[in-house]
């Protein structure tokens, strides 16, 4: 997979962390430059420094962090060719399908390769992934990517519509994952691809309820058991304001002081019995239009 060395070398794929929302993969090719609004960097300057280094811009106006790729960082940084799966789903599916060192895994479609990378991380060198993609351009791009990441020996990528033409392996997969618009069309094929001598598992991912119901029905018709449906999310935890709140005693005091000030003004007006020029826009009845409003209130 990606480099495991301490220091970055020419040819390595790295992930540039520009900001939390701007991550970008980069292949180190000395001679080239990386330019962005976060500064300018020579690839050559990154060679030999440890992964995880903060690097200042050559031109002095910014910095970046250079990270070792992981499937999780890749998922955030990768060029999206399709809607992709994110961490919560990937992690849960991997866990539920019991994908681990040595697992034989089948997936369709490859899509942007987000799940593929995570699977290849988990199965190690002794496992294997058969990945199918019906969209030819996407398949070719993914193939190049896997090669560049040193994963060619862990994965067999096939351009094929599995719903029509089935899988290329039989009685092989420990785990099979379908991320297709109509997974039910692939269930019978999937059954053939799964190994028969032990428990093997299938997961079908669908955004819409109708798809799920139809898939459940197809799985049941094909003799699968223990069918369950899960939804999972990873929610950012919002830190709650802990500053102490103002009290009604404080606002009460403010209101009283303000009333005294207005009263002084008012008594003056009543006593004088005539209307001063500067008072013309200052209302003089009991209910002033000028609000004393506490912090954060802000009525308009």
């Amino acid at each position, binding site marked *: 997979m990606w480099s495991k060395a301490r220091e970055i070398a020419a040819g390595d794929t790295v992930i540039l962390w520009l900001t939390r929302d701007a991550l970008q993969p980069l292949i180190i090719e000395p001679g080239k430059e990386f330019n962005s609004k976060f500064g300018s960097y020579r690839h050559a300057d990154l060679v030999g420094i440890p992964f995880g280094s903060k690097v200042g811009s050559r031109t002095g106006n910014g910095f970046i962090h250079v990270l070792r790729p992981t499937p999780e960082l890749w998922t955030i940084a990768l060029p999206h060719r399709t809607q992709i799966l994110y961490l919560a789903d990937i992690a849960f599916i991997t866990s539920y399908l019991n994908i681990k060192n040595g697992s034989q895994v089948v997936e369709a479609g490859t899509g942007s390769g987000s799940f593929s990378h995570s699977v290849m991380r988990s199965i190690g060198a002794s496992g294997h992934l058969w990945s199918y993609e019906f969209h030819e351009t996407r398949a070719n791009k993914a193939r190049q990517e896997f090669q560049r990441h040193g994963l060619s020996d862990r994965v067999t990528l096939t351009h094929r519509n599995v719903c029509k033409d089935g899988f290329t392996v039989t009685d092989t997969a420990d785990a099979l994952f379908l991320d297709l618009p109509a997974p039910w069309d692939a269930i019978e094929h999937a059954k053939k691809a799964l190994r028969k001598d032990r428990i093997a598992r299938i997961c079908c991912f669908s955004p819409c*309820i109708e798809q799920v119901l139809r898939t459940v029905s197809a799985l049941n018709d094909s003799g699968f058991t223990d069918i369950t449906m899960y939804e999972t999310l990873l929610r950012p935890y919002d830190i709650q304001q802990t500053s102490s709140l103002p009290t009604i005693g404080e606002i009460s005091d403010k209101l009283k002081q303000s009333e005294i000030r207005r009263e002084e003004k008012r008594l003056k007006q009543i006593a004088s019995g005539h209307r001063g020029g500067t008072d013309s826009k200052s209302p003089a009845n009991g209910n002033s239009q000028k609000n004393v409003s506490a912090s954060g209130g802000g009525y308009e």
Partner: protein
Amino acid sequence: MLNLPKIQPGHNVLVRQPNGDVRSIKVDRDSIVTVGRLGSFYANELIGQPYGFSYEMVNKQLKILPVRTLEEVEDTDATNELINDGEFVQPLTLDEIQTLKQSGVHASEIIKRQIEQHANYSLKTEYSKDKYKKRKEAKYSKSFITIEPTMHNVCDYWFNKDQNRIRDIRPDTLSQMLAMANVLPGGRYLAVDDASGLVAAAILERMGGSGTLLTVCDTDSPPAYPVVANMNFPTEMVQSVLKSLNWATSEQHYVSVHAPVEIPADEIRSDRQKTRLRKRKVAHELLENTREELFAGEFEALMVASQYEPSGIIDRLVPYLAGSASIVVHSPHSQPLVDLQNKLRNAPGFLGPSLTEGWLRKYQVLPGRTHPTMNSSGSGGYILHVIKVYDDPTASSVIISRSKKPKTDTEQTLDSSEATPPSLRPSSP
């Protein structure tokens, strides 16, 4: 029918644009109303109309559009297999579209032409086609739908527009607060509303023009409750019911500094001065009456959605609640209510404090494409609910047998003999 709601001159009307955005427009007689960037129309076209119609703006006039139901989309064998990513681009140039628009071509026609010119359109799945058509329609249609200003719709509008100003109270949260407080027509309620009047508006609607709502605010003048404006209540429905004090004037020992001034008649120099003195007297009487109304007590519920520290509010207002009245306190954050709950657990006179958080999920319902909408709008805040009771200290000492029972969650029982801060002790009957 009596309560047939029609759009009246001066109403604030919520309208939904084709892209889903909701705006509030003011419909004054003989005016021209502008709807965002969509266009404008003569307000009189809308006056007298019931809510819920869909209109298209044509030469500043409104054309009612036919109602649309969901269309079943046929699921064909087509897939997006042969469409290259990134190639599904605008088939008409921006200039071409501009020219079509200026020549007065109808939106549906522009969409049709785009589809015709779109090389890959026939290759797409029916779902993709449907999505594409809808997106284009949202972009070119000059139409809107009027939304009935129900409390639910108005709350939803504000929540989407600026949830801070309504202290994160979501429609489901608001509905829970009203249920917990048992608000009913003709009741007498206390409220503290720093949520732009959302809570006051909801109570006022439930009261239906009879009863008393006394709010305590943090301003010199009667509070500005902008949400109430969106409800388009008849004036009498509010004026006969709503009264306000502030945190100073609601104090029992408060002495008004602007009590009527007795000025010898010969010293009154002008009519203007006379008017002022009269107004002052009226204002003072109103204030005193409202104070008396508060101090008379026996209110049926207290609802709080305030920026101020809640236990101080409870201390101040609980003495005016009837026995068995509900106290409902909302907060966007959990901590102030966790603290409050801990206090109330150890105070006599409060029964069954509970702290809850609402959870709401909306689903897109389209034939074959039902799924949860993922704009999970975070929290609608937290609600503390507790019932005011009259404590009887003599009854609390013999209960050891009960409090030993596992899972019997009567906090009152456990602590009522302990010393409790007198500030949290409600008035006894």
